[in-house]
């Protein structure tokens, strides 16, 4: 698998990362290098093998349905670049 420049630009757009047109060839090379390395896995025959999701037989932990968290608005808003009263704010998004 090899990425063309259009796909590189599309991935950047989906990830909301602004890139310069001049960066595209370098990024294309790096991404293709990563993909090529991961593609070595294709050499292993896994036909009929159940996907392994972990090394142990650990099942997902769950918690009881109890309210134990929240009511910490100051902490929640502490990183907000532009909070107004009890709200986060963002530049207007209307579809």
């Amino acid at each position, binding site marked *: 698998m090899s990425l063309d420049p259009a796909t590189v630009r599309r991935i950047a757009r989906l990830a909301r990362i602004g890139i310069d047109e001049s960066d595209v060839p370098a990024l294309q090379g790096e991404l293709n290098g990563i993909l090529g390395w991961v593609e070595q896995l294709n050499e292993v025959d896994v036909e009929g093998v159940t996907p392994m999701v972990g090394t142990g037989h650990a099942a*997902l932990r769950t*918690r009881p349905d109890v309210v134990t968290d*929240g009511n910490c608005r100051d902490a929640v808003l502490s990183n907000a670049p532009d909070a107004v009263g009890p*709200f986060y704010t963002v530049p207007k998004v209307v579809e």
Partner: protein
Amino acid sequence: MTYTIEGRTGAWEIVVGLEVHAQVISHSKLFSGASASYGGEPNTHVSLVDAGFPGMLPVLNQECVAQAIRTGLGLRARINLESRFDRKNYFYADLPTGYQISQFTHPIVGEGTVEIELADGTVRHIGITRLHMEQDAGKSMHDQDPARSFIDLNRAGVALMEIVSEPDIRCPEEAGAYLRKLRQILRYLGTCDGNMEEGSMRADVNVSVRKAGEPFRTRCEIKNVNSIRYVMHAIEVEATRQIEVWEDGGEVDQETRLFDPSRNETRSLRSKEDAHDYRYFPDPDLLPLVVEQAWVDELERALPELPDDKRDRFIKQYGIPRYDASVLVAEQAIADYYEEVAKGRDARLAANWVTGDLFGALNRTGRTITDSPISAAALGGMLDLVSDKTINGKIAKEVFEDMLETGDSAAAIVERKGLKQVTDTGAIDAAVADVMARNADKVEEYRGGKDRLFGFFVGQVMKAMAGKANPAMVNEALKKVL
């Protein structure tokens, strides 16, 4: 009869599938311990997990899983003992993590079915493709500030069930019946309150059109329709639009659209360029969810009686028509009320009073069954007076209205107003004789062959006795002398 829409080139069928988002009833959120209750000051039902702070880890709420399984069982669906959580990636201001945790490749519930009944009595089965758990997003407010949107994350991370139907729906009425049935099942199960106005149940509607016998054509998805009536309108409007596109020689694009009820149209919601590419992948924070069959069995044993089963039991146990049974099981509270009234009494009479006079009274007074001005015990008490012939059916209506107004018991009203039915043959015979004497001409006519005058005599006798006579005995007495 197949529902079709007539175009310039002939009849078109419509094909509809629904994706319903149902908010799970739980105390806390799907992956955090913050409150899932509605309302609350902005951004107070939010933990650092919900706000997407770095390093915070999701921990699954066991009860939300139980609710999803109960719902799956209620939809007669397959429960997948192993399911997984995936990340659905997209950017929006009310999605702090930049991804929604959902179940994409391995949902917790597989194929099931919902039985619907149409106005003409037709019964159809709508297939369920799957049900999966996912997180709700926060809320954006766009009208608070000219340049900014305000974000409240109280809903962010609340558990949703997405229930996907097969494209089995063929007309707006079926879509409405399906949604009502689904809502009824969810409410019986207590897994979602089904309140579309408050957004705890919303539907995405997939619509396409085709000529008879064709395979499916391209569909469009109408997002977030929030009432059953709007879903039915949106289907018709969108199908009509697509027919025009095809008949003008165009192609329908697969796209997401929005229904605008005020203009009765759908319009494209997202430009093609922005078409979502969600790049799903397994959430590395969450292991596969494995549930034991024993637990599923335990949940199944604890399920309440479902509406279809209850309806069938009512028909059998109480000998009432299917239509009445369907009306009575529409809500659990109505069914409970009916069963209390019917217990040990004439069940058909009870059904008539509940679906007739009681529903009428609730409508007029703007009440519901749970705050009915006449309790099941009180209505039952009145029916006892009808059954033991203390009052007749006509007087019962008068007593019922009085109960509605005063809240007194039927027995007290009968006593107060002296409404006790007259079953004294002497009094009835006297009234009959009196009426005959005063209407000698009519008696002649009747005996001359004008049979329909019989009703006139009954009316006169009842009137003379202020409506309190036993009607059967009046008929009897009249037949004897006439």
